[in-house]
Structure formats: C-alpha cells, structure tokens
C-alpha cells in the first residue's frame, strides 16, 4: 500500500453553502466534503478513500460562528473550530459540557484546524478499517477485529452487527446529552435531525456512521435552551492525556433541585458505533437523590447487557466507574 501521497482529485472551493450543496449533489458518491481535514487527509494520503471530487468547505464563512437563537439556545456553524468552541464564553457559561468535551479532543494544534462538524462526522478509528483491509465497513465480507485473536481493545460493548467499531468523537456524546439538533442541507432544503438520531450503527448502514447521504451538508448544530446552565459532567479516559481517542468517555447533563436529580441525559462514547444514550441510567436516577448510592446504582445499570470481546472487557468497569462519577461528582 502506497502511503503519504494523495492521489489527484478535482478540488472545488465554493464561496456559498448553496454552491457547495450543488456540487455535492451533482457528484453524489464521487464527491467528498472537506472540513478541517484531520480525518479526510489521512484517508486521502493513505489512498484508501479516493474521491474524484473534493469540495472544500473552508471558504464558507456562513458555516462558522456561535450565535444565540431567539429561543435562548445557540447555533454553532458546522465549520466552527474546536478551539473556538472550547474558548467560547457563551458555551462555557451555558453548556460547559460541550466546551469541556471539545477541550479534550486531540491536541491544541489539531483543535485549531478541526471543526465541530468534522469531529462528529469523523469515521471510526478501528485500526483494521483504517489500515485499508476489505472489512464489512469497507465493502468486504469480513470483520478482522471480531475474530478469535483480533486486537479489539478499542472496540464496542454494544451494537455489534458484523462491524464492532466505535464512535471516536468526544463532542458527539456531549451533543446527544444536550439534545442538540443537527441542521442538514441538501438540494431539497434544510432539515433538523435530533443528534440522537443523527448517528447510526452498522445495523442500519454498515458503511456510514451518520444519516448523511451523498449531497447532504451538515451546516449547523443547534443546542436548545432546555439544558442551559444545567449540572454537567464530562470525562474522557484515553491512553494519553492529549492527542488520543477515548477508551471511554461520558457526558451527562442533569437538573438537580435540592439533592434530587429532576432530569438527566447521560451518554457514553466509544462503547458503541453511536454515542450510547444510557436511558436505563436516566430512568434509574431521575427523581433519586444525587448521592453515592444512586451513583452506584447508575454505574451498575450502565453496564447491563455489555458484551465484550477478547481485549476490551476493561471497558465494562471503566464505564461503570465513569457513570458512577458522573452522578456522584457532577
């Protein structure tokens, strides 16, 4: 496999979103939308993904920025950098779970170039798949990780369906916890999709990780006012403290009145192909006192049904502990 040298492609640099939508619609599956490039350029340089047409979204100023919405929520342009998000006073004040999660992505240099859209749309990091093997997700008929001696330490606890890869995003669990809406534009216009429904597993489509189809552009992410100023918890455990993907991460938004958890959304990353909303935990915690006992129940609840592979059963106590901490320490 020849590496580190991109093959040729036709590059478009539109100056309007509609222009980008037009190009992506025109070339369909042959086109590739390029945001910060941290995922895309790896694929290109490895010559594993080889689009004929690349549509560079970096010139679209209307896709950048953090805006307050009339309903009290905020809208974040999909091309807003992670650095802008982690340093936004508005986000820090209202949705610190999001700025905290953005701050834990990769490294400062990468966050300077990476966008929120790219972070949630990035492909999985299964090393077999990234290597370029002909696995299910790459259109083949095999999963190399789900084998008797497969090296699957980073892989899933839930949702295995031929593919056992996980969502690598740190911001996606936070967005699902905040009940964010993903604004998608195509030739038919704009549509809003709840973040929870935006991500899809291999049971729905093994070659995609979101509902986006050729011709679609993620233009913005809207965060409703519902959870503004709530009690938040975000924690990521990775091998290294910077420039690494999560082994497991946890994002929780909760409203606590007195010592009682009135409402909560809690989401785990890197345990399934999608950010895993822990609804059973939410049910177990809602209306309960926010204390050690509830936290322990939450942790135990979170891991029910987890199905580990050869090298990833450590994720079960890790997830249990992170959920416990989210309730206990938030």
């Amino acid at each position: 496999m020849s590496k580190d040298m991109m093959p040729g492609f036709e590059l478009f640099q539109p100056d309007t979103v509609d222009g980008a939508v037009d190009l992506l619609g025109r070339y369909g599956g042959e086109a590739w939308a390029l945001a910060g490039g941290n995922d895309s350029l790896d694929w290109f340089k490895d010559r594993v993904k080889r689009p004929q047409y690349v549509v560079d979204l970096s010139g679209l100023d209307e896709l950048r920025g953090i805006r307050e919405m009339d309903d009290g929520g905020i809208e974040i342009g999909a091309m807003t950098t992670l650095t802008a998000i982690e340093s936004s006073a508005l986000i820090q004040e209202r949705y610190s779970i999001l700025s905290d999660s953005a701050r834990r992505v990769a490294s400062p240099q990468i966050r300077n170039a990476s966008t929120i859209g790219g972070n949630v749309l990035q492909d999985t990091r299964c090393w077999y798949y990234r290597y370029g093997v002909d696995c299910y997700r790459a259109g083949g008929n095999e999963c190399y990780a789900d084998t008797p001696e497969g090296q699957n330490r980073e892989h899933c606890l839930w949702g295995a369906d031929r593919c056992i890869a996980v969502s690598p995003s740190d911001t996606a669990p936070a967005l699902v916890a905040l009940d964010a809406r993903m604004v998608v534009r195509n030739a038919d216009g704009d549509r809003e999709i709840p973040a929870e429904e935006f991500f899809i597993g291999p049971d729905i489509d093994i070659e995609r990780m979101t509902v986006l189809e050729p011709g679609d552009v993620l233009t913005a992410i809207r965060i409703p006012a519902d959870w503004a100023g709530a009690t938040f918890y975000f924690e990521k455990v990775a091998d290294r403290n910077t420039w690494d993907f999560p082994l497991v991460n946890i994002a929780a938004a909760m409203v606590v009145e007195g010592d009682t958890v009135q409402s909560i959304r809690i989401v785990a990353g890197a345990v399934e192909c999608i950010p895993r909303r822990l609804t059973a935990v939410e049910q177990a915690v809602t209306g309960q006192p926010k204390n050690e006992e509830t936290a322990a129940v939450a942790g135990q609840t979170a891991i029910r049904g987890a199905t580990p592979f050869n090298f990833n059963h450590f994720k079960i106590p890790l997830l249990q502990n992170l959920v416990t901490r989210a309730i206990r320490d938030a």
Partner: protein
Amino acid sequence: MAYDLIGTDFTPPDIEAKVTGRARYSEDFRRDGMIFLKLLTSPMPHARVTNIDASEALAMPGVHGILTADEVPNFPEPQDPILTNEPVYVGEPILAVAADTEELAADALERIRVDYEELPFTVDPLQSLFPGGPNARTNGNIADLRSGVDLQELKWTAADFAAVEEGQLPEGQPAGEWSYGDVDAGLADAALVLDETFVTCGNSHHCMEPRSAMAYWENGRCHLHASSQSQSFPVPTVARYIGISPEELVFIAEYCGGGFGSKGAGYPIMAVPALMSRKLNNRPVMMRIARNEEYSIGTARPGFQGRIRMGFGADGRVTAVDLYIVQENGPNQGFNDWQSAADAVSLVYTVPAMRFRGVPVLTNTPPRAPQRGPGQNQIAEAVEPLMDKAASELGVDRLAIRRINAPDSTARYGANQGGVTSAHLGDALDIGGEQFNWEERKARSGQRNGSKVTGLGIGTAYHSAGGSGFDGLVVLRPEGKLHIHTGVGNLGTYSHTGTSRAAAEALKCDWADCVVVRGDSRNHLPWNLGQFGSNTSFTMTRSNWAAAMDAVAKLKEIAAMDLGGEPDDYDIGDHRVFLKDNPEQGMSYQAAAERAIELGGKYSGHEVAEDLNPMTSAAAAGVAGTGLVGVAKDNMEHTGTVAALAAGFIEIELDLETGKYDIVDYLGVADCGTVIHPAGLETQVKGGAVMGFGLAVSERHIYDPQIGLPGNIGLQQSGPPSYLDTAATMTSAAVDIADPQNPIGAKGIGEPVQGCAAAALLSAISDALGGYYFNRTPVTADMIVNAASGQAQSHTPLQVNTA
C-alpha cells in the same frame, strides 16, 4: 580537578539553525534535476515474489525506472537486505520506482503488478519454537548474528511447553547460555526465591525525522544526504551497501531528527536512492520515507518473554539468579538485547551466582535493532518491580534492598565477571534518597484521596558507556583558531560539541577561538565510534584528548626547536607555548601554526602515525598544510567495562476508577563520571525519563497474529508519551565522581536514565495498587482498570504484541 570548559554550559553551535528552521535535514535538500522514488512494500508478513510486471508503470510519462532486489547488492541471510524478493514482514521494501514527482511515483506503484506466493509466518516466538510451528524464514527460526547465533531451525519438545498453561515460560534448548558461581546453592540457601514469568513489549522506533535520504553521483563519487545519528562510523557500512569503497562516498549527516539507536550505524534503505541514481545516469533521487513506512523499516526494540528465579537473603541481598529470555528478534539479523539484559542483571544486583539461558527467535515483524538501553532497559522493567516484591515479602525497605545490592567500582560484570572502570550506583541511590526525601515520602505510599491513591517508586538501570581505540584530529590554524574535527554525529545530545571541548580544555584554548568541524565527510573527519551505546562522552573525550595532546607535544617541540631547550621545558596557556621558567619567552599558537606549516612533515599533517584508521589518515591529508595538526589514536589504558548507572525516584497519584495517574514528581540521578555539560545532562535525564515513561506504560506494539498486520503504524497508535503525560516536576542530579580511565573523568549516561525512569514508574504503579505486579510492559490503562476492579487481564501471561 578544575576545568575551564568541562562542567560548564555552552551554546551549541547548531542550535540557532535548529530553532529557526534553517537546519536542513536530508528531506530538505534539493538538486537540479532531482526526481523522487517511492517504495513498493510487502502487504504480507511472509511471501515469495513470483513475478513483477512493471510494464504499465514504466510506460507512464515521467516514470524513469524501477529498482528491484536483483539489481542491488545482496548479503547472506538473515542480514537486513536492501530490497527483497522474499519479504519477511509487512512493509518490507520489494522494489522502488522513480518518477518526476512523488505523486507520479505513487501512481506508478499502483500500476506495478507483483505476484506473491504466501509463506508461513508467525508473530510469536513460542509459537515458532513449538514442534511444527511456523518459521519466520524459509531457512530457519532463530538467529542473532551479533551473538554468534547463525540462522538455523530450533524446535522445542511438546513436553517443554507443559507449564505454559499455568503461565510459566517454557525453557527448552537455549541458543546461548553461561553461568558463574553456584546457582543451585544460592537459590537453595535463600530466604526467599521469586520465580516469575514476564513479558516486555517490543517498541517501534519513531524518531521525529523519518529515515529519508537523497543521493546523486558526481565525479565518480556518491553523494548521500542521510538521516544518521553518527557521522563517521556509518561510512564503511553504507559504502558496502552501495557497493563502493568508503572513499567513494560523500556522507552528509549534519542534522538528525532523532535516532535512539535505529540510526547508529549504516542501514540498508539508505542505499536505495544511491543505487537508483546510479541506474538513472547519476540523476539526483529523493527518497522520502513516510511515517507508516518508518514503522516497518524503521526497526524496533526486541521484546522479551522471560522467566527469572531470584534468590534473596533475609536482608534483601541477592544470592543467586537463574534467568531465561526468549527474545522476539524480528525476521533478520536482530540485536543482542537478551545477552545485554543478562549482563546488566549480573552487575546491577551484584549477583554472586548466576545462570543465563536464552534464545533469539525470529518473527515476521519489523527488523529489530538497538533502541536506547537495548536489553538493559527491558530487564530493568521486568526485574525492578520484583525487587519491590522481594522487599515487601522480606520486610525490607525498597531503597535499602537496592542499596544493599548496588555495585561499586569493585563490582564484576557479565558472563566473564570482568571488572568495571567505575560504578557508583550506591552513591546515586544515596543522593536520590536524600534529595527525594525517601524516608519521609514513603509514608505516603497507599494514601487515599477519594478514588486516588499515592504510589512511590524507585528504579535503577545500567548500560555500558564507552569504548576506546578511535582517532582524534585537531588543527591549530595560523589565524589563531583551533579546529576540532569530529566524526561525532548530531543525534541531538550536542555531544559533538561537548566532547570537542576536551580538546579545547587540553590545549587551554578560549572556547570563542574554537571551531567544531563536522557534519559532512568532505570536512576531513576522523574515524570515530558511532553515537550509540552511551559511549560518546567516554570514547570521544579520550580521542579528542589524544589528538590535543599530540598537538601540545608538537607545540613544545616547535618551541624548543626555535627558542632553545627541551620540549619538556615548555608549558602552554593563553594560546601560547612558553618556557616554564620564563613565561615571557615563548611563541603564540598562531606563530607555532605558521612554523608547523613551514616545517611540514608530522607538524603540518603531511606525515601521520601508522596506527591511524585510513579514514583519519585521509582526513589528516585533507587538512595537511593548513596549520599545526594534532592527530592521534586513543591508545590510553582501558580495561574493564565502562559502567553508566542511574537511579530514578517517582511519586504518582493513581485513580483506581479510571486507571489513569498523574506523575507528581520525578528525580533522576546519574552516575556518569565527570559532568561535561550540565544542561545536556539535565536534558538527558529528563528526556530519557519521558521516553522511559512511554516504555513503561504507553508505547504499544500490536500485531494481529492471524494475518500478521501491524496495528501501530502511526504516532497516535503507538503512543509515545505526550507533554501532558510527563511529570509535573522533574529534577536531575549527578554523582559526579570522575572515572579513572578517562582523561577528564567522563563516561556516558544516555541509556540508563530511560530504564531507571521506566522501572520507577512501574514500581510506583504496583505500589499504588497495593503490590499488584503485572510482570508485563507496557502497563496500559486497561490493565490498571482490570487490576483495580479485580478482574482478569485480557492477555494470557505469555502473549505478545497485544499491548
């Protein structure tokens, strides 16, 4: 002894170029007409190339040619080849294609059809040793040329593997063994015997600069810009790879973005652009090595599967050791880590009786080569935690158990139990214990703070640190400058300049009047040992001292000749040679240099001693007539092993719920003889520690045993420690006792400062976990989570390449 230059900091002459980006590494060079090559590498762990059809690629406009294994010098197996028709690891170069642009070369590669016959492969030494197990090479499964183990097949009996299911290393027929003392009695009489099986992971080299190279031919000589941690030493080897004499090679290696042992000597891939250039009518050819290619051809540290039986007296004194190491040695010639590991154990714990057995087994993984502390640092990771375990079981303090076993200058070393030039590990432990405040701090061990628990650790490590018999070359120029020609490479430690200061010290020159000449073989550089093995400080201060002393002798002879008296009547100082009895009577270095040119012969470098290496003689001829030439071979006394030793002390706070920890504080103490360059030493101690942390906990080496694919082909996947994974505070200290066999008392230190830090961190993690010993490196977060939550580890005790 008081020095003017030794022991003081200096501004390295190349630092401005490095920090401003003006420094040019091999990939930065351009030449008129330069074209690019790309490598076609094996997609399989072991295969035979049955056919190559490049016709379609060669028909592409702008594609200039291919270079195959049939067109390059070949060497007897299992030596590392340049290109091959029987690849033995994924990523091994099979052929190269050259084109106008790199993109075109990459496109051309995709048009070359290579047919392969798949062959058996293995990524696990024990699998290969099992009866009927696969061999990594067609002609055998064990080899280590450096240890005299030729390529051959070795299979153990099924009965040898009886205890594997219980997690114990099988101990079949070894390929090498030695012993001294009465091991059986030492173990029988011990108050405690630990019997432990362990695994240390292989580690890829991931120097910041990949091993790119550019070459062209001009006036019958091959000009090669290469990434090398050494300057003079690789020249004969690289010339052999290209198929020319050393005199026909111009070797330019002024800057190197890290080597860590992987670029110490010449390596085969350097020859590819040179050979392609020659095939294409001497046209300049750039070979840019990609990061993922670096993870295959860039070599790796061998991994160990080992078993140690270690006896202790009630006071913690080691009574005997029985050590067996199965070394994963890659598919080729490999390296002798297994032997060095055993030697290290004998010295670091002053073992009274020891038996060592081992076998270097070939696997279809990247070629193995030295990596910082090859063997010594792996064994420090394996054995140092066991010292803690013994201390715990015997009720002995963890510092005390190391102190009671620590070598001093009477210690014996290795299989032959030879002597050492000096050893002061006990002093290092004493200094560290005091500065780290061990007695007070150890009370914090196990202290809980919520989910966090404090762990304290100590680690020690060793590496041999010096050679002798190499040459020095200096020129006192008529304009008053001292030119110190050095064949020391630029591996990042500034030892090219640090060791040159020994010559300036000997000649009592102002540093401002000294010029370090290096970086390009056309600069008339002497024959030096390579910059590996922690040897440069000891070796090159000796050879530079020898050259300077030759210059001093010639200064005195010229003064006596012109001013009367005997040479011994004269002394030097203030850039003058003068009568001891009448310092007013003398001559300046400038005048002496001019006289040397007039006198010719040995004074001007036209005549040199016969014991010089031909490279040094040629270098002297190159500078002959430019001043007073001091040139000499280091013939000073050298008996025994030069022992560099180090001790590390660490405090961590480990979160039992996440497996993560913070390194609160780290102290490294070096026994490196006289400190030459304090800032350089501090950087070595701290930088080595950071690399050691990676060795201990984060650097991963992953292979799928079913398909032979590597799982770590990028920096993020391999996991060298990041800035945020290092210690909050780090300090360094030195024993600073002169080595008696070096004229300024210096010896090396680069390697043990890594091993001691790795061992200290492992020790602290086990301490925080209340005495949970992993017997395995790296100890990754998942392993700590498993340990803390009381569940089994994912790997079996002897499993490899799973980290």
